[in-house]
């Protein structure tokens, strides 16, 4: 009797039928057409072409996720594209508006510093105690590079976190794709043995940055440690301290985002350093989607643990049948498992209850967010490149 039990991938064909895959992709296609309609109305040919490319790209990736039953590889293409194209569009806009990647003090005073999501946890305590936002931006749009304002980024963060939990780090973060791309370059890791205690690094950085942000009343991570200033913007050095701060971010970018991912094939900045990632881990508890391990089927071969880009699987967690709270829902472990023991799962349901349905529901949610937001960044970056030629 056919049951609602898990449909084993080994008993399925290697590929889902093209027709069924297309049917499952249809909602994503319709959503893309809806979300990209407005950017497509832009009169510039470069933007129109960029929208077309982005639409085909996102829809094709989803189609391949359906066709091949796998997630990680296709999601990675999207994420790397996001990570590479964000700096293209952003730096171009910065250069057009200001002529420099260095934020001059005038822009900080005018409240025109763009606000990214990473300082959000650092602002909470000072705001709670003094109703003050320790960031030189604007709450609402204020022209220049202020973009949609701090309230808009906070609103987007909250909305996306409710939907994705720490899936933000796999579908929304416009920085992580760079190191994910670097990690994908070598065929094998040169450094295989990593002390698992480094996984606690993001929590230590979060703790220290929260305390220092409150003490110094400034966004301490942005001022001192953020490696992604190398691909966005930084405070123009006005004195020796500024030069030291800028030197630090260059070193951190070279180490954590370029070199270490190449050596370890891990997302080292995300796994061992990013304080926002630690903060987002808290919201994984609220998310209804998770990865689980069916202990009855697990051998354990620990291939999932080796595949995880953020070391979110340990022998102990595998024994409990779950990932750690740092899991970014990238799907690498599920795709790697030869026994289909690692599965997508909806909390409250039986572990054997149709994991493909759980994966589909998560991917619909994730792609619904990725298309308008990450998609618009991809369009912007592509349009910037195409504008040179068109």
């Amino acid at each position, binding site marked *: 009797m056919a049951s609602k039990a898990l449909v084993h991938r080994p008993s399925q064909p290697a590929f889902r039928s093209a027709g069924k895959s297309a049917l499952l992709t249809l909602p994503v296609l319709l*959503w893309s057409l809806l*979300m990209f309609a407005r950017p497509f109305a832009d009169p510039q040919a470069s933007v129109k072409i960029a929208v077309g490319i982005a639409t085909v790209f996102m829809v094709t990736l989803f189609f391949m996720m359906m066709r091949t039953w796998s997630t990680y590889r296709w999601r990675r293409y999207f994420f790397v594209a996001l990570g590479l194209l964000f700096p293209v569009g952003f730096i171009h806009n910065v250069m057009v508006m200001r002529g420099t990647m260095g934020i001059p*003090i*005038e822009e*900080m*005073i*005018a*409240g025109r510093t763009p606000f990214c999501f990473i300082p959000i946890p650092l602002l909470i305590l*000072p*705001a709670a105690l*003094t*109703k*003050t*936002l*320790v*960031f*030189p*931006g*604007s*709450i*609402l749009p204020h022209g220049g590079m202020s973009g*949609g*304002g*701090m*309230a*808009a980024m*906070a*609103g*987007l963060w*909250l*909305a*996306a976190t*409710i*939907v994705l939990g720490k899936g933000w780090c796999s579908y929304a973060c416009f920085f992580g794709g760079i190191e994910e791309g670097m990690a994908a370059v070598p065929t094998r890791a040169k450094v295989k043995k990593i002390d698992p205690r480094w996984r606690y690094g993001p929590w230590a950085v979060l703790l220290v940055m929260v305390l220092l942000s*409150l*003490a*110094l*009343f*400034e966004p301490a991570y942005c001022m001192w440690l953020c490696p992604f200033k190398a691909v966005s913007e930084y405070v123009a050095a*006005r*004195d020796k301290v500024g030069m030291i701060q800028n030197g630090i971010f260059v070193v951190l970018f070279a180490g954590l985002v370029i070199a270490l991912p190449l050596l370890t094939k891990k997302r080292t900045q995300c796994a061992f350093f990013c304080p926002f990632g630690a903060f987002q881990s808290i919201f994984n508890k609220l*998310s*209804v*989607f998770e990865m689980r391990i069916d202990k009855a089927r697990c051998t354990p071969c620990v291939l999932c643990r080796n595949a995880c880009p953020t070391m979110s699987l340990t022998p102990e967690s595998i024994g409990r049948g779950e990932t750690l709270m740092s899991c970014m829902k990238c799907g690498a472990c599920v795709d790697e498992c030869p026994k289909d023991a690692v599965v997508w799962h*909806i*909390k*409250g*349901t*039986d572990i054997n*209850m149709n994991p493909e349905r*759980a994966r589909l*529901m*998560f991917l*619909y*949610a*994730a792609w*619904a*967010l990725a298309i*308008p937001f990450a998609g618009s960044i991809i369009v912007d970056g592509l349009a910037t490149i195409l504008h040179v030629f068109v």
Partner: protein
Amino acid sequence: MKLPTAKLGYTAAGVTVFAALLVPFILWGSFTKAFAGLGLHVDEVYSGGPKVRTIQLAGYAIDVHRPVTPHMLQSEKPFVQLDWRPAKALPPHISDVVDVDGDGQPDLRVEFDVLEDAKAPLRVNVDALNSHYESMRDVGKQKFSSLIVRVDDAILVRVPLASK
């Protein structure tokens, strides 16, 4: 007990997918308005504090802001910001005596050249006429609490308050 929790789980998952669809249309805007309505303000060390009065002069005005006191262990000194606006109407050289606190007594003499190139760096000399303020000599824009910068169509001067 498995079936009810499974139903709950699938319901929550369905709501999550639905929420994702609502984000661009409703949720993002609602959350943005909620954050904007929290009554927070950007740190006055950056923004300069609210404007409290305007001194009208011939052809231009000086906006006086409320003095800003740093929080916690901020390394900036307390300061007061003065805005000369509109910048395009300013004479080539400014030498103004300013009554900052509105008590009828002069507090500062501020001198700076207004350069044609809006992006050119400015320098300011400030003579404190009483003990409440600090004098500044040939100051540019090194620190938030003592600087001269051009922002849009105004020239901002920040003068540190003397420590007691």
